[in-house]
């Protein structure tokens, strides 16, 4: 069986507004890789690409969370969102390898 390789691309640069850049981490936090693994699907998690999120034009690029998987504190509204959905208020330290 071929193995799947998960590639996170935390980008919202082409979107209507920011938000999608948190999706790869959110999918990981929701247990996507573990669920695949438990379903018998071989999957590894590669490093996340460094991609800027979506600033308004003229404000300059915003550094992404990408690359190293350093846990970070969330701003209050993100923390509220995380708590609402039962997540920790810190990003997990998941190293990307199942």
């Amino acid at each position, binding site marked *: 069986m071929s193995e799947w390789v998960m590639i996170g691309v935390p980008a919202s640069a082409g979107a209507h507004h*920011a*938000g999608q850049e948190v999706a790869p981490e959110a999918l990981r936090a929701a247990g996507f890789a573990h669920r695949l693994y438990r379903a018998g699907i071989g999957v590894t998690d590669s490093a996340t690409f460094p991609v800027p999120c979506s600033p*308004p034009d003229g*404000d300059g690029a915003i550094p992404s969370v990408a690359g190293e998987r350093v846990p970070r504190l969330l*701003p209050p509204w*993100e923390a*509220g969102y995380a708590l609402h959905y039962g997540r920790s208020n810190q990003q997990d330290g998941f190293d990307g390898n199942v």
Partner: protein
Amino acid sequence: MNEWVMIGVPTSAGAHHAGQELAPDALRAAGLGDRLAQAGVAVTDSGNLPGAVFATDHVSPTARNLAAVARVAGEVADAVAKVVSTGQIPLVLGGDCTITIGAVAGLKRRHADGGLIYVDGDADLGVPGDGGSDSGILDSMGISHLLGRGAPELTALGGHAPLLEASRLAILGSDPRETDDGGRAFLADAGVSFQEAPALIADPAFAAQRALAKVTSTSSRFIVHFDIDVVDSGDLPLGNFPHYGSGVLLDHAVAALRVLRSHPSFAGLVVTEVNPTHDPIGSELSRLVSGLTSALAS
């Protein structure tokens, strides 16, 4: 000087998806209360109402989350009525646009001739079950419900329909691409003052004065609904539903709000559609807080 009372309404029940329920606390975290106080605006914070979070609704696809929307609107009506009855000014922090139905109901308990100036990127003329409102998102149907068209749970929130007479309503700043000919004809026939984005851009103060002239000719008190999506998302990408290309800048909206809130009949402000998840570093929230502070400071 009348004191403002901040009322948080953490709800996205009437929206396209979750996110806006985080706005009241995000605005506080961005320093709204402190900035207003520093600008000389007397404000107290009454905290958050219970609110509601958007949920997938497979049962009522033409009026999604109607029960939650009606419950929250009722809570807003109670809270606004309480503040208005003391002579204070409610600063309602939404939350999606359906909360304005409750705010109007609350104002009218104290001032039966109360009016509304609706500053919004959309005219919100959808009706449940109408072909033009297939999304079932009540957030896009607020004006219809205020004028008596739609779900009885909302149209009769004030005890009778219509909750708001067309002569006491002015709509300001909506994107012309969002209203069809049928909608324009409905508003014209009803006698609603309707100025779209080009009028707001051309002269914000004059457009605000025109809206005031209409509403204050029939209403002793009025509230202002400020949906931040009246601002072009190219300038402020913070609204829950993006509006790119209208050309309305935050500065235009602030200039109009400053005129509206300076009128002696002004009785409150409802801020809607802020989605903090669109602003991971808080820069847009900070701009909005600066704009609101500028508009509300004496």
